[in-house]
């Protein structure tokens, strides 16, 4: 291995301190709390008691999965259209996508209550045009909508980024060799955009599976997710040990998901270089 010079060490030092302080230390804390009881004695009982949360874990994964799929379906065509628009239109679309992110996450989510509530904007509209009231708030749909709304930009941006770099002459070469638009999409555009899709999926799935607050506000607390369970243990139940155990399992789940995703990129060798 290369020997690092003193200056290189000095330059690296703040980052190493940062990593230890803010990444490694909290993780060690999580593991410590997860494996101890209130009095600081070693125990597996926290992890053992997680079986009662299996439904919560299952729901979290399922909702995050649905939100990711919906994000992908929405973002892919949007990214494609953006990448093929004029530069000025691209900037406008980019602004529109980024705009909601200028607002606080909690406020953004809270404002959906006004839209979806039984006496909210949409239902008032439905009643005036004669459809009648539709139950929207406090449904799984509302929770997933909240996830899609909050995390959609994280899907659009990486896909847009690879799409806009896509070599147009490859598209023309495929057309030249007999591909209609659908075949071009299948044989050139999709394989080339795969690295963006993979990172988009990761960037939506991971925060979705660990999110809290969305379900409390838009699901009316009826559909507890892991993030909410963890928050509850720390904020109201003051059971740090159980909260830490939940976090640990969630972290492991995310790591496993990411490993699976990385396998996909490994297959498309050159795409993996982009990561």
């Amino acid at each position, binding site marked *: 291995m290369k020997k690092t010079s003193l200056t290189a060490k000095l330059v690296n030092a703040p980052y190493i301190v940062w990593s230890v302080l803010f990444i490694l230390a909290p993780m060690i804390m999580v593991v410590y709390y997860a494996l101890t009881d209130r009095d600081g004695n070693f125990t597996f009982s926290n992890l053992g008691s997680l079986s009662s949360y299996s439904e919560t874990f299952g729901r979290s994964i399922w909702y995050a999965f649905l939100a990711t799929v919906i994000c992908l379906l929405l973002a892919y065509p949007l990214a494609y259209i953006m990448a093929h628009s004029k530069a000025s239109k691209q900037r406008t679309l980019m602004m529109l996508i980024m705009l909601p992110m200028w607002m606080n996450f909690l406020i953004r989510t809270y404002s959906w209550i006004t839209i979806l509530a039984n006496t909210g904007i949409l239902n008032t509209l439905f009643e005036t045009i004669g459809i009648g009231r539709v139950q929207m708030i406090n449904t799984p749909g509302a929770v997933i909508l909240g996830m899609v709304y909050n995390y959609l930009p994280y899907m659009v941006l990486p896909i847009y980024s690879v799409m806009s770099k896509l070599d147009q*002459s490859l598209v023309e070469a495929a057309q030249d060799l007999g591909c209609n638009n659908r075949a071009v999409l299948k044989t050139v555009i999709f394989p080339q955009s795969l690295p963006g899709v993979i990172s988009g999926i990761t960037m939506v799935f991971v925060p979705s599976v660990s999110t809290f607050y969305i379900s409390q506000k838009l699901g009316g607390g009826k559909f507890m997710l892991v993030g909410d369970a963890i928050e509850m243990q720390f904020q109201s139940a003051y059971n740090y040990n159980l909260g830490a155990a939940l976090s640990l399992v969630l972290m492991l789940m995310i790591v496993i998901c990411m490993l699976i995703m990385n396998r996909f990129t490994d297959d498309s060798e050159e795409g993996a270089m982009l990561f």
Partner: protein
Amino acid sequence: MEKNAVIIDLKNISVSFDGQPVLKNINLYIRDGEFVTLLGPSGCGKTTTLRIIAGFQAPDSGEVIFEGKVINGVPAHKRQVNTIFQRYALFPNRNVYENVAFGLEQKKLPKARIRETVEEMLALVNLKGFEKRRISSLSGGQQQRVAIARALAVKPRVLLLDEPLGALDLKLRKDMQVELKNIQQRLGITFIYVTHDQEEALSMSDTIVVLDNGEIQQIGTPTDIYNEPKNAFVADFIGESNILDGIMHEDFSVEFHGMRFQCVDKGFGKDEPVDVVVRPEDVDIVPPEEGMLRGVVTSVTFKGVHYEIIVDIDGFKWMVQTTGYAAVGDEIGLSIKPDEIQVMKKSAYSGLYGDYSSFSEEFDELSDPDSDVSDEEPAEV
């Protein structure tokens, strides 16, 4: 060359990008089996013409006719033409075999047929045994061959080549020129070749189409284009030329430098102002008293097969290529035979080209390695 049926016919094609005209009323027909080169400087519209034939670009007006049928609305994937792109545009996530097989797979041919054709094509371009290689592991020349094999595998009627050799070094480019010409003759398909390299155009083509500024300047065989350029642009762009102001007094008699010369041109008006072209290699150096024109040598450059001599005659600098030697400062005579004088009608290009007076000054800068002024070689990409 035998006259085959017309395969592609462009009628009154005009295109503009953002209000800038790129092609102005192009009319061009191409015969089946011909090797046609679209030659011109960058921005002349040659690539746009190719893209219109391929179907990647729709003309603003005019008709694209393929074997008698208008194909303006036919998308690229349904046209019987294939393109070799400037940067090859090989699919990076496919190996050599899969690239060549791509077009055949789109046609849903049986696997055995595809394998057979791919092997045949790889043999044609001397890439046997490269089937499993990744594109990124190939050299530029090899990638070029894969691109050729991929385009030819689908058996196009017309192959379009967009500066295919531009990215290769000189030696490889020369070899590929010969190879491409051989392939074209062996398969008997029409090649439409785009280049800015006049030498490449002259050595490969049956027909050369010289374009500038979105307009066709001249269409003809390489010898026609070289020996009988239609205007000062063509004369200057293809080879070296001395282009002088002249007056055509009557058929077979033209005046320049205040002297009357016999020539072989006719059909001009009486005393019509014309441009006169004399190729540097067509001028003979003789003792001053025997010369039709006299001048003083201002520079001499040794070029291997010949000397390139700049001669000042009444302030106009001639370029002469000769195997004989003359020293700077010598007074020499020039002798020109009647059939070596080419008379052209005046055009928008008159007066822009053909005097080597700036050229001779540039010789002083030649010791400067950054100066590339004397170089007529195409720029390497």
